[in-house]
């Protein structure tokens, strides 16, 4: 019937068309799902995709959601390009929030301009340190970074929980497992008063720009791409795979840590056990949806932010279970990966494909 013929070069058109096609397919399957759940499919889709744009506050909330997703996905995309799979960004996010937040709590009540930069540095350093564990174990012992970084997500979540029920618990908080609220110098400056959008969004844009320059203009970016596309050639070229592994994990860990710090000192405002809500995992989808390309990731971050906010709106106005958002995001990644066959292969007719396969 048909056969797949490898393209010499991935098709540029298909590369950017597949995310759109995947999105359309996801919406179609989503509509079937909504019908099964007994909701009006057209109305539900309209709520999900239009309500995030209904007023200025909702638009600012898009920025709030997109900021951590873009920051984390930018870091992850470097590693994914090189075939290095940091899937523990959720843990690095948590540790960044915990360490940066603890710094803020240590200087509680103090007004100082240096406090926020210090928290940023601590958040980045903590995320890097958490990611350094899989980097070290991979380069020194060959331990699989996928499993190690993932196991550390559970450890980080438990550590956060232990800290907010122990040393970092709010002394006036009636024993609730939560820290004091961050105040004054320790809160993220806002982009726009009356909203929750904060200057972390600018940091995310800067990170995207830096990644774009790195990939296109810097030798490290070249090494990352080479290691991903032709690992054997990369080894012959004589540069050390381990250096790229360290680089990718440290950068992605640092950015995830920063995103965690932003989340804790921005929209959430304190350390709570429920701080990690899965941005580290959703960012994996964002990275692929954005084609591992910095500009693409910014767009994809906003698309995913729409599904979060639209999902919440549908939860309230259409009584949809909140798990619908996760199903939607999972489907989207599936369709995206599946449709990618169109960019790397040509589909040609041929008799007897199924026999040969």
């Amino acid at each position: 019937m048909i056969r797949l013929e490898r393209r010499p070069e991935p098709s540029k058109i298909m590369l950017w068309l597949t995310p759109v096609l995947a999105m359309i397919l996801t919406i179609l399957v989503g509509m079937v799902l909504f019908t099964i759940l007994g909701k009006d499919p057209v109305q539900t889709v309209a709520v999900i995709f239009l309500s995030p744009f209904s007023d200025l506050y909702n638009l600012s909330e898009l920025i709030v959601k997109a900021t951590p997703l873009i920051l984390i996905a930018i870091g992850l995309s470097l590693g994914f390009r090189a075939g290095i799979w940091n899937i523990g960004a959720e843990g690095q996010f948590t540790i960044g929030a915990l360490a940066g937040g603890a710094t803020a709590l240590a200087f509680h009540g103090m007004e100082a301009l240096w406090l926020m930069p210090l928290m940023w540095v601590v958040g980045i350093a903590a995320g890097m340190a958490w990611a350094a564990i899989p980097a070290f174990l991979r380069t020194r012992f060959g331990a699989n970074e996928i499993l190690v970084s993932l196991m550390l997500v559970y450890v980080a979540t438990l550590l956060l929980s232990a800290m907010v029920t122990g040393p970092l618990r709010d002394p006036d908080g009636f024993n609730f497992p939560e820290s004091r609220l961050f105040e004054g110098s320790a809160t993220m400056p806002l982009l726009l008063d009356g909203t929750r959008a904060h200057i972390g969004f600018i940091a995310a844009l800067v990170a995207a720009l830096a990644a774009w320059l790195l990939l296109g203009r810097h030798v490290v970016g070249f090494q990352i791409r080479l290691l991903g596309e032709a690992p054997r050639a990369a080894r012959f070229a004589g540069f050390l795979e381990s250096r790229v592994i360290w680089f990718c994990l440290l950068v992605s860990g640092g950015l995830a840590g920063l995103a965690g710090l932003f989340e804790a000192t921005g929209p959430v405002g304190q350390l709570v056990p429920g701080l990690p809500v899965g941005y580290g995992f959703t960012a994996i989808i964002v990275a692929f949806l954005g084609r591992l390309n910095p500009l693409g990731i910014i767009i994809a971050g906003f698309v995913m932010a729409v599904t979060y906010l639209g999902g919440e709106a549908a939860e309230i106005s259409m009584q949809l279970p909140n798990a619908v958002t996760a199903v939607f995001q999972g489907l989207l990644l599936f369709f995206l990966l599946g449709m990618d066959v169109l960019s790397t292969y040509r589909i040609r007719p041929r008799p007897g494909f199924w026999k040969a396969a």
Partner: protein
Amino acid sequence: MELLVNIILGMMLAATPLLFAATGELVVERAGVLNLGVEGMMVMGAVAGFIVTAESGSHLAGIVGAALAGGAMALLFGLMTQVLLANQVASGLALTIFGLGLSALLGSGYSGFSIPALPRIEIPLLADIPFLGPLLFNHEPMFYLSIALLLLTGWFLTRTRAGLILKAVGENHDAAHAIGHKVVLIRLLALAWGGALAGLGGAYLSIARTPLWSEDMTAGRGWIALAIVVFAGWRPGRALIGAYLFGGVTILQLHVQGLGVAIPSQYLSMLPYLVTIAVLVAISANPTRQALRAPGSLGRTFHAQG
């Protein structure tokens, strides 16, 4: 003595879901496919097992439903990676994200619902043997099933021609294809088996161990099962040891908590994850041994030329 029996029993209970999932994934990886979606398949098995049992009143139907749900998830992964030639690592992650979401959606009406726990089968006479009796001959049927499936897998991989072909496909898919084996078909079958077993592992959690459904109830066990396969060096016998070792750590941690040690429970709950990392490092640190055992085509995309 009774405390010791209880500890070992607890270890067996904690190990059984891991053993199911690891046995399944071991066959999949032996066929050369790296399915990182074990967690997603397990959690789908858990929710399907629970819902079918709750609706039909039959544990057996629930167990079958869980295996089918896990198998269906695995075939979705197979469609992605074997037919559409998508990257296996990314597709496995997608399967986990999707499975966690879909199970939460399907199970949203069932939290707080309760079903009767899977009854134990007490094997007459044998169960009365002191010490060994309660340990070996007084379990839920799923416990015996996990051991039986492990033995079946071991026999299949080492004693049958089909098992040999499956291993050949995993070692070198191009060579296996060249001598006429149907690489894609064999891998899809292996995936379905792996998914069904992961589903059973999930169902063991939701209908035998704690007859309840809660979101994300697998809590990383699917990932630990993947680590067990590496620990086992892709050999079934050692998967049994691995699963029981991890089960032991889980249960030890609970017993230490129960003794009222002055350590916050969160630190003890970290133990299974930390031990997983430690074991991975210990196994991986010996590269010659590991390289000899990892299937040659593991994780590589197969595309028949011409």
